[in-house]
């Protein structure tokens, strides 16, 4: 019945100025206040997804078909992995404009090793990822040692590494990956077996509820307030139902691809690292107030190095996944709209451009929005890249505007 565990001695609810939450209506009211105060979280992007679905469904019902939704998830994953890296640099208030080119270079190195030099796929993948690590280290050196702004050296990287891509590919310009390749097969053609998909969905929901309950019990043991159990169970139930329905619907067609599952796993790992570890805490601190972080004894340079390396590495991994998906690497790999799409996805998903605010999940939500728009435009017959670019640009502008307005609302309502 009560909003929080009825425990007058709970150490964190003692202050009379604190607005107490009791029951369902208060929980909704609190969320509304949070949104009004500019703490938007993932609300705009979820609203966006609903609007996109309704509009395209009205124009062409096939948009919401199982087949099309599976395609959207599969095509979203590679760029989503790249966007995950972008989220990290944005959290520091920096930018990486060269992710597309870096993804191309990683893929090209892999393709040349595997196809032209007949090396094993494993070696090719390691080499591709190593390219990302090396580029990240170079960026970190430029930023930390020489103090070059990230905008400048990644702009240089955008052009420079596109040149490297041409150089690595050589005169052919296009390298086709063998279709029977294990990596290509799993990333392009294979989907999770249906029973395993259901099992995973149940495990994820149960894991969410259990971990929250355990944390709550620990808090109560420590004399702090616990969670409102019915509310948690409702949330967990909705999560389970939603995931079960999504799984059922997608398995009418092919289901969850290994590629998509790998992307979701990466997002979950990154979210854990950002929220639950000291490293993640320090990333947010440096993004929020670098000088304060330094004075608190945080090794700020290490945070910058780790983030630049992770971003470039994720870009390279995204490039490898994209190569497997289209079974080839060409001069256009990662060059046309990968940069814009990945950065836009991170921002649209709710990661602030101003640093210190965002979440790993924004990469997933943002890329779903952009790929849905792209797919929808294709389906309704606007197949030209001109319209797609205009729409993507417009959505990015909208997201940044929402971010800026929300930032001012936060400033005036005291939500940082």
């Amino acid at each position, binding site marked *: 019945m009560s909003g929080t565990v009825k425990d007058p001695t709970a*150490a*964190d609810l003692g*202050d009379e*100025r*604190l607005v107490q939450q009791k029951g369902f209506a208060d929980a909704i009211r609190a969320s509304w206040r949070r949104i009004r105060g500019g703490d938007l979280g993932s609300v705009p992007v979820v609203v966006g997804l609903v609007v996109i679905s309704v509009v395209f469904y009205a124009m062409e019902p096939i948009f919401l078909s199982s087949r099309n939704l599976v395609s959207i998830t599969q095509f979203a994953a590679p760029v989503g992995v790249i966007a995950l890296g972008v989220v990290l640099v944005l959290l520091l208030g920096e930018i990486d404009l060269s992710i597309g080119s870096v993804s191309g270079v990683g893929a090209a190195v892999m393709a040349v090793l595997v196809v032209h030099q007949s090396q094993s796929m494993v070696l090719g993948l390691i080499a591709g990822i190593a390219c990302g690590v090396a580029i990240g280290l170079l960026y970190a050196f430029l930023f930390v040692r020489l103090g070059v702004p990230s905008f400048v050296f990644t702009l240089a990287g955008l052009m420079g590494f596109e040149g490297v891509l041409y150089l690595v590919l050589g005169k052919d310009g296009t390298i086709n990956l063998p279709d029977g390749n294990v990596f290509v097969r799993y990333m392009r053609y294979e989907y999770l077996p249906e029973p395993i998909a259901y099992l995973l969905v149940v495990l994820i929901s149960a894991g969410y509820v259990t971990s929250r309950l355990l*944390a709550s019990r*620990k*808090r109560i043991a*420590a*004399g*702090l307030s616990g969670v409102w159990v019915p509310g948690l169970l409702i949330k967990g139930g909705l999560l389970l139902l939603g995931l079960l329905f999504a799984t059922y619907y997608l398995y009418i067609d092919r289901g969850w691809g290994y590629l998509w599952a790998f992307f979701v796993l990466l997002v979950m790992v990154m979210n854990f690292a950002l929220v*639950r*570890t*000291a490293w993640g*805490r*320090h990333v*947010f*601190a440096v*993004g*929020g*107030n670098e*000088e*304060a*972080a330094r*004075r*608190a*004894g*945080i090794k700020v340079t290490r945070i910058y190095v780790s983030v630049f390396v992770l971003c470039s590495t994720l870009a390279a991994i995204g490039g490898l996944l994209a190569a497997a998906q289209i079974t080839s690497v060409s001069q256009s790999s990662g060059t046309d709209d990968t940069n814009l799409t990945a950065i836009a996805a991170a921002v649209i998903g709710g990661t602030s451009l101003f640093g*210190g*605010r965002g979440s790993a999940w924004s990469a997933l939500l943002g890329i779903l929005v952009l790929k849905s728009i792209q797919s929808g435009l294709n389906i309704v017959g606007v197949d030209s890249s001109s319209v797609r670019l205009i729409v993507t640009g417009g959505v990015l502008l909208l997201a940044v505007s929402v971010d800026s307005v929300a930032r001012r609302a*936060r*400033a005036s*309502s*005291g*939500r*940082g």
Partner: protein
Amino acid sequence: MLSLTGVTKRFGAVQALSDVALDVRAGEVVALVGDNGAGKSTLVKIISGVYQPDGGTLVFDGAEIHPDGPADAKRVGIATVFQDLSLCDNLDVVANLFLGQERRGAGVLDEVGMEKEAWRLLRSLSAKIPSVRIPIAALSGGQRQTVAIARSLVGQPKIVILDEPTAALGVAQTAEVLNLIERLRAQGLGVILVSHNMADVQAVADRIVVMRLGRNAAEFRVEEATTEELVAAITGASDNVVASRTARRDQSRTEGPR
């Protein structure tokens, strides 16, 4: 507990500190006052390890120390609350309190343990923070200063240095911070208070050390110092702008209005 003798520091051609001495005992509030450029900040930065002295010794708890950075000084037991830029607006109170010294269990953050300790710390300061899970941006200036001071206590230091803790605060918030300083003293900590505000200094300090042009200019016990004496010591001689203004004012008072 902390004793500085003969501390000197040069920046190029400028002798910022020459032969400065300072003593802080447990359970004592020592105010460090002086005009701009008197060397207060330099001295504080030497104690907190931001600068290394060119000469002189720092003796803490009977042993000579050479802190090389605020984190190192804090390990020894000297915590510094800097004037500004020391909190992350986007993080909540708990995250800020334990920033850089997070508690961990099995690799992940021990949020429950940190929150519990946060409440204990804030209670010990009788601090009025409504919730420790709200971002710093939602707090008033006085509450922020409270969090900054509470943070300095996380590693259980013996000396706390407060650099201009009331500089940007209103009347009520200043009083809140002064209360905090008295509570630190009651807990047996040595406090070094750097301030421009004579009223604050006279309200909480036990001793007042005046610096002028990088030297010890004077030292007062608070009960025997008048504001005039302090101002005279801060500005140097009686032959200066401030003293002549005071003299002129006194003169015009005795003559009375026409």
